[in-house]
């Protein structure tokens, strides 16, 4: 792999950019791999990357039914934060956030990590108490967050209307090193690094069946033939239920559509990320000037990557009352992604009832921020066959045993 650097840029500038070459290869699948990862989104590629980097396992294929990063990795609102309440979640999300800090250098690929600061508005007294509790919990967990008064909120985001028609802004929880990154670049950067380690990234290759013998996985059948493996990692987000059915088990997961949209590009008006969970919308501004906007999931099972119009309306209503200055903006694009929602709204990184088959799913509405930490933890699980410290609480049997990681109520995160 040719390293990207200012010298490479200068050299290519002098020869009409003729020498760049492809960032990753597109090989034909081999007959057998040590590890197959299903799903070439951020989480799957990060899993493959840390398998190679941390555990020296490089005979790996990442297979993808569509194109690389074309699912939720390319459909999210690119928010990165780790201000969670429960110890196990804040540990894995903070691991991810801290890996994002140096990911561009690590991958030699500019992922445009922008720790611009992230603010979660408190608009009811319940939220004030909840976020203050989270701030205290974060102090103990070593995650840097703080409580801002309404005046301090106004200072970091001057376009905000503190006295909205429905809910006043009573303060906010602030994570100064939260922010955004370029979502496609995260997938591309990991893919390039994986390819450089000799791993095969096989796109347009849909898994149609999981082969097993005596309760142990032996490979997968795909639209491009059978591929054998010693270990299988399923990292397919919204389609986890479909893959789990092929592997012969059920998950506590339901797939729903989550929408996002962007406005026409405008001059800089907001230089942080703001999430308003009571009125239900979140917003940041991309480098191109578009406002990147998201809201809640549609409430019913859906695999169509489209969403319902009235949810968009609800999200925009929330943001217009919070930021009246944007009321005349036109929206440019809208899309949906299929998110995998678990019963306690926390992810699953787990062994499965099928031997040597591992699953990483259930990130629901908050997967992008977790990509490096999720890949790190999943790689450890796949390599060692047992979860490390980061993943140990996130097994799928916690639902039977009542060990929920209850973020949906506790932290009031947007769902």
């Amino acid at each position: 792999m040719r390293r990207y650097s200012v010298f490479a840029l200068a050299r290519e500038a002098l020869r009409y950019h003729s020498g760049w070459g492809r960032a990753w290869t597109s090989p034909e699948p081999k007959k057998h791999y040590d590890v197959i990862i299903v799903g070439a989104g951020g989480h799957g590629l990060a899993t493959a990357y840390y398998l190679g980097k941390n555990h020296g396992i490089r005979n790996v294929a990442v297979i993808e039914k569509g194109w690389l990063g074309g699912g939720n990795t390319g459909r999210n609102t690119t928010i990165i934060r780790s201000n969670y309440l429960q110890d196990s979640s804040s540990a894995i999300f903070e691991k991810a956030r801290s890996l994002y800090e140096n990911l561009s250098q690590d991958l030699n690929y500019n992922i445009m990590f922008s720790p611009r600061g992230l603010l979660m508005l408190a608009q009811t007294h319940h939220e004030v108490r909840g976020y203050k509790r989270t701030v205290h919990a974060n102090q103990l967990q070593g995650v840097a967050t703080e409580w801002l008064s309404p005046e301090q909120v106004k200072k970091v985001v001057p376009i905000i209307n503190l006295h909205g028609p429905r809910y006043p802004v009573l303060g906010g929880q602030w994570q100064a090193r939260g922010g955004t990154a370029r979502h496609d670049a995260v997938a591309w950067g990991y893919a390039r690094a994986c390819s450089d380690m000799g791993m095969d990234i096989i796109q347009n290759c849909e898994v149609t069946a999981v082969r097993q013998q005596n309760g142990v996985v032996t490979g997968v059948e795909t639209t491009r033939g059978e591929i054998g493996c010693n270990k299988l990692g399923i990292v397919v987000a919204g389609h986890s239920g479909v893959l789990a059915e092929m592997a012969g088990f059920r998950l506590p997961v339901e797939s729903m559509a989550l929408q996002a949209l962007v406005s026409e590009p405008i001059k800089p008006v907001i230089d942080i990320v703001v999430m308003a969970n009571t009125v239900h919308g979140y917003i940041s501004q991309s480098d191109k000037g578009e406002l990147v906007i998201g809201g809640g999931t549609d409430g019913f099972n859906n695999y169509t990557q489209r969403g319902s119009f009235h949810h968009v309306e609800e999200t925009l209503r929330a943001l217009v009352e919070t930021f009246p200055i944007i009321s005349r903006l036109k929206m440019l694009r809208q899309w949906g992604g299929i998110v995998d929602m678990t019963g306690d709204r926390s992810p699953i990184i787990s062994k499965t009832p099928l031997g040597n088959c591992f699953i990483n799913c259930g990130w629901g509405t908050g997967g992008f921020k977790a990509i490096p930490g999720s890949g790190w933890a999943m790689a450890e699980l796949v390599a060692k066959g047992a979860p490390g410290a980061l993943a140990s609480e996130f097994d799928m049997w916690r639902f039977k045993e009542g060990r929920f990681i209850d973020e949906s109520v506790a932290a009031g995160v947007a769902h």
Partner: protein
Amino acid sequence: MLILECPCCGVKAEETELAPGGEAHLKRFGPGSSDEEFEAYMFARKNPKGVHFERWRHAYGCGKWFLAARCTATLEVFGTYPAQTTEPPAELIAKIKAKRPDWKGWK
């Protein structure tokens, strides 16, 4: 836009009138059941990519619960029926089988 005909009041209700209620025909397991049964009742869901039977409430209409058969991959609605039943009506199953010959059945 999703439109379901409420079998209780006969109104063709669009999505803003309706509240989704998750998978239909779950059998309740309570005290005395095994851990596996209770976990499956509480959390394990079919979550199919295809034909799905689900509960809906005509929240901003007659307020009654009813059941619907819908395709999660195309959003096609096959039909709705009253909630006072433990399985989908035979004619609805026949209708779905005619449209989806590969469908493995509702269980």
